[in-house]
């Protein structure tokens, strides 16, 4: 799962933009075991990682635990990160793995069954503005079976390809495509 290499200090590409260059610096510090660099990387990535964990789990406490657990694994494996992009992909993959392992271990029924829709307001309900529409979509996503939710979140919000989703969720690429299809149809029904 971790796919880390343990080699010499990574070398940033010379034409990297400034923000990326700063991330290379932080990564180098992390590899040297410097906590401030680690904190810098945490601050840089926490929103995206927590967002992913929250959208996958639908639970604040679980998303916080996954986020912390992922970063503790980053520290554990700090010497192996070769580039900011490698770190980003690794963070995402480990977060998905941690989440799906939790569901399989503790709540396997959630993978393919829908969450209760009782708390889901009708689409276009009183608030009726863009924020309300967004909330409707968030709640509709949360109501999907966990596997469908994960595929649509990873494909549409985080831009993963089916092959990457399949690898993360332990399914075939074909199953990922079919699940996306089902998820979109179900979302449309929920939001109707």
């Amino acid at each position, binding site marked *: 799962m971790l796919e880390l290499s343990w080699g010499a200090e990574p070398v940033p590409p010379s034409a990297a933009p400034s*923000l990326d260059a700063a991330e290379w610096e932080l990564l180098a*510090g992390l590899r040297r075991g410097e906590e401030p660099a680690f904190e810098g990387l945490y601050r840089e990535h926490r929103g995206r990682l927590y967002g992913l964990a929250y*959208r996958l789990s639908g639970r604040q406490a679980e998303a916080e635990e996954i986020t912390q657990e992922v970063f503790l694994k980053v520290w554990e494996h700090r010497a192996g990160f070769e580039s900011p992009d490698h770190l980003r992909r690794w963070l995402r993959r480990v977060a998905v793995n941690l989440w799906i392992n939790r569901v399989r271990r503790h709540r396997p029924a959630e993978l393919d069954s829908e969450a209760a829709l009782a708390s889901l307001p009708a689409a276009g309900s009183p608030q009726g503005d863009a924020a309300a529409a967004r909330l409707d979509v968030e709640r509709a996503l949360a109501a999907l079976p966990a596997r469908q939710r994960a595929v649509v979140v990873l494909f549409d919000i985080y831009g993963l390809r089916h092959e990457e989703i399949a690898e993360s969720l332990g399914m075939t690429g074909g199953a990922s495509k079919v699940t*996306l*299809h089902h998820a979109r149809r179900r979302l449309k029904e929920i939001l109707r």
Partner: protein
Amino acid sequence: MNAPRPNTREALDAWLRGELDAEAERAFLAAAEEDPELRREVAEYRDLIGQVRSLPPEIEPARDLWPGIAARIPAGRRRSWTWALAASLLVAAGLALTARQGGLGPERRPPPAEAVTATAPPTLSPMARSAYAQTDQALAEIRLQLRRTVAEREAELPESTRRLLHENLDTIERAIAEIEAALAERPQSPELARTYIAYRQRQIDLLRQVNRAAARL
């Protein structure tokens, strides 16, 4: 009457599975235009997919998770703060530069602003004002604390670090003014208000980091 082409229903399924490449997608969407029922269905799905894709990938945790992480790092493995200050400054510079260039991606890009003279909050929408109220006090306190710390320790800093620090402080001030000016131009934009909140929060985090690093030199 426009009879559905035999393959359009299959194409719709393939499109919903995310299987079509750009060219195939264009062909499918063009074909769908010729079938009113399919056109309506495609429009509904495009709207749905658009709504999902417009959700921000980043969500700020309700509390700072760093202390819980830091507490579980073995103390003997932590190293050097001197380097960290420079790294923090580089990050700050990178972010501020990105702000000026509008380079944080479509969801986080403030519109160009000509006026950069704002030093006090401009006229803001209620949402933006609320965001400003939540973040501005914290930022002001941190900025003050940072400046005090730096003033006390400035002589101990290497010349290059000192210069970098001052350049970054100036850059951050300019970036903040530009975002506020953009908000003044589009005070009703919830997206811009969200960008503003996220940006303020990131700047606060960076300043905190720089401040902590400077304090430990």
